[in-house]
């Protein structure tokens, strides 16, 4: 069998790559895709721990994560379409309407 830490290491690597996409890219579409990558690496952790400790709750939480991700993507892409219609930009830096 595959040792547990292999799965966790894969999840760590995917998480760091996704975080790099969120922090370093300036294109909103790629930032959204990197968010998907982050959530997926968390799912790998959930399912790996659930498998190695013989607990179904890992899989159940992964199902909830997938459902919430679907909702998030639908809303985010709706916001993106409305944004492009109003401002015609895809750069994160140009979106400063809600100046933080």
């Amino acid at each position: 069998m595959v040792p547990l830490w292999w799965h966790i290491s894969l999840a760590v690597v995917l998480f760091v790559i996704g975080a790099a996409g969120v922090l370093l890219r300036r294109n909103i579409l790629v930032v959204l895709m990197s968010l998907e990558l982050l959530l997926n690496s968390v799912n790998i952790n959930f399912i790996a721990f659930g498998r190695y400790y013989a607990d179904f709750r890992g899989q159940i939480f992964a199902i909830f994560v997938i459902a919430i991700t679907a909702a998030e993507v639908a809303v985010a892409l709706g916001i993106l379409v409305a944004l492009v219609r109003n401002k015609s930009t895809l750069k994160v830096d140009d979106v400063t309407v809600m100046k933080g």
Partner: protein
Amino acid sequence: MDQGFFLLFATVAVITALTVVLARNPVHSALALMACFLQISAVFVLLEAPLLAVVQIFVYVGAIMVLFLFVIMMIDVREAVLQRFLPGGNLPALVLLVLLGAEMLVLVLSSDRFSATEPIAMREGDQIRQLSTTLFADYLLPFEAASVILLAALVGAIVLARKEPE
């Protein structure tokens, strides 16, 4: 056997994930993300979670990626393709990421809590039946809350993407 398959899937997943972040064209990013999700669902099969693997393919590759490609086709990405992406553009964030990754890897590798090689044996019987019994008996309230959230997201997406009436 399992280890070889895992290494194959993990390598392809990491390479495609890097492609997602480094590709200049968002369409290439979306296709690489689709390949990455397929590899992750293969990892789920190795973890003996076949239901999750199928859900992963249906939801991510089937629904979310189609949504992404649809939106990419709807909006003009030619300007985005032209702008160059330099990984060293944001040095503090890069340093922070390297630190984060190194810290997590060192913690995982130096701890012996994660060294389990043989999983605890699952209870006998139909795995998916037990999984769904747990989901619909113990986690019914979160399940309903998730469905309400999905409905709210559906309505919200329609309202947001609708053209303003003149």
